[in-house]
């Protein structure tokens, strides 16, 4: 396992070019090309603004402007959810590589995560532009946590997709199960509602078990709210993610030999 992990570092060139290929291939043939990476979140933001400022007025003053608040949670969530959905299928889709080429299989789900991370980064300028437009800028010390949160999410997501992709090879129904689970997960995480609502506080014992809670709330605190109060739980999640990653990699490594035969 350690040997394979070390190999993974050697494959960074491959991962890099595969991520680039993924991004290129996605918009190949469309007129706007890369620009879609900006247009998509922009349109989304436009819709939210319209709906939550005109149709369904937000009654919680602390989450104003609501569209900005929501976007702070939606962007990282989209990264996580798309990574999970794409990666669960990545080994099956890349079956040709696994069966016919000497190829480190873990590269495939990791590439899904990284490609979606790039999309996440593409969305950030839109978010910041919108923040400036609405005059709601992130406060200074909190925003410094932002890279830390991204790093924790990266480790956590990679660990998740390693387990998920390896198991999906054997249990194809995980793909369909996952689509529903992600929807449920979305509403179980304080993304469209703030974490300090009474409804959340009453059930905080349950919320604490949701790892995404400990990521999304810090994102919101770092980018939107004035105080950064969840540093401790974020760091605990970070530590746990590293352990989780090692366990996930161990599982992936154990199942590795079965991929070429089952895919």
């Amino acid at each position, binding site marked *: 396992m350690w040997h394979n992990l070390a190999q993974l570092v050697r494959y960074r060139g491959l991962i890099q070019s595969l991520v680039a*290929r993924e991004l290129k291939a996605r918009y*190949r043939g469309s007129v706007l090309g890369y620009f879609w990476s900006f247009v998509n979140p922009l349109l989304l933001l436009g819709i939210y603004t319209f709906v939550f400022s005109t149709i369904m007025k937000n009654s919680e003053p602390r989450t104003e402007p609501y569209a900005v608040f929501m976007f702070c949670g939606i962007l990282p969530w989209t990264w996580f959810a798309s990574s999970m959905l794409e990666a669960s299928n990545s080994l099956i889709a890349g079956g*040709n590589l696994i*069966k016919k*080429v000497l*190829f480190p299989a873990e590269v495939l789900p990791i590439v899904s995560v990284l490609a979606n991370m790039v999309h996440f980064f593409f969305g950030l300028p839109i978010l910041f532009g919108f923040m400036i437009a609405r005059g709601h800028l992130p406060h200074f010390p909190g925003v410094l946590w932002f890279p830390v949160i991204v790093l924790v999410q990266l480790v956590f997501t990679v660990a998740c997709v390693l387990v998920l992709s390896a198991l999906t090879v*054997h*249990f*194809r129904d995980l793909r369909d199960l996952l689509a529903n689970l992600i929807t449920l997960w979305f509403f179980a995480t304080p993304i469209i509602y703030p974490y300090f609502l009474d409804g959340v506080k009453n059930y905080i014992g349950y919320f604490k078990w949701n790892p995404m809670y400990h990521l999304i709330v810090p994102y919101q605190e770092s980018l939107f709210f004035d105080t950064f109060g969840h540093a401790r739980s974020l760091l605990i999640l970070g530590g746990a993610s590293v352990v989780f990653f090692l366990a996930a990699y161990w599982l992936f490594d154990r199942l590795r030999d*079965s991929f070429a035969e089952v895919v």
Partner: protein
Amino acid sequence: MTTGAAIELSHVTKVYRRFSGKQFATLKSALLQRSILRDLQPKETFLALDDVSFTVPKGSTFGVIGRNGSGKSTALKVIAGITKPTGGSVAVQGRISALIELGAGFHPEISGRENVFINGIMLGLTKREIHERFDEIVEFAELKDFIDAPVKTYSSGMYMRLGFAVAIHVNPDVLLVDEVLAVGDEGFTHKCLDKFSEFKRRGKTILLVTHSLGLVERFCDDAVWLDHGQKLAEGDPKRVIGAYLINVESAEEGYLAETDARAQEEVAVVEAPPAAPDAGADAAGPDSGPQNMFQANEGRWGSGGVAITGVTLRDAAGEAGHVFQSGEAMTVELALKAERPCDDFVFGIAMFNTDGTCVYGTNTDIEKYDADELSGEAAVRFVIEALDLVEGTYKLDVAVHKKDGAPYDYHRLLYTFRVKSRTKDAGLYRPRHHWEFSPTARLTRTDE
């Protein structure tokens, strides 16, 4: 350069696990029965390689032959490191490149140029190395004008050529080739072979898995024959190919015997040969009769009275069989039984190739034998001194009929035999021949 082993397999066993039914098992049931880990254990196993050992010396070209499903490709995958052997060990020295599936990593949406880079990186090259070899790769693939078009617009030949070009320019120490020379046209195949020769000259090791025995004979220094996962022979290619061919022949022999038995069984079921009323009408015009008959499918008909009870094909040594060497003797032996003595009978025989073309047909009447008497059990032997046919599968008609053509017993295409030949000449018939050249046209025979 030729010391040491490039590839060494020792007692390699590969068991494929068949996760039978598991593909359709649901996660739910696995969870309910708490059997996830148990379900990941195999239920059935399939032995793809069974204690196979061989050594490929550095700088040699090594052929692997065998029938479909004999474990050739598995051996290649084990050597390439794509799958791990269940038992035994594999040692490979130097950079390895496997031409197993060409262009396996190509992405259809992006251009050939970008795919070359990514494929090259997958195969272990660095960006700089690819830059250096890029022009060479494109030229080799003959895709100069199309290299910036997305790969999805390529024809399958172009796709394969590009895949081959990238893989061969990895510049490996050990090249594994799995039946990929069938790509591209004649010209490209020659180019590939030239490239292999160049590899050979430079002292690189090539492992060739192929069904093309000619290629193995021409190119390889050594060969190994795998069958059902086991190594049956190893060594000089000619000897290994010889042993393999004998085995293929005996398998074909068994298959042909089975086909014959089935054909005869089928007609036995619909036996009761009715004296076809138009059989007489056919006989009225001796020219039109056989022609119509030649269009008939296999079967058996006739009025009875005289029956062909058995047909045996024998080789020069008198052994019964279905596979014969071109140019050797063959005897068709008919066993007959006449219910009552009769004096109007003709024995006939005809050979057809798989297209249905009559290769040869004759009977005792044509050859001026006058029938005197046939009674009880009898044997007729049609002795061919030299079976001068080209390689192929042939079928036999045998018949005993009246002088006017009305059949007693007609067996249509019920017997099959195969002619084997080391010479791949064309046509039907091989006249006994040799070549003569004036001293100014000098040629050398390569097969002896």
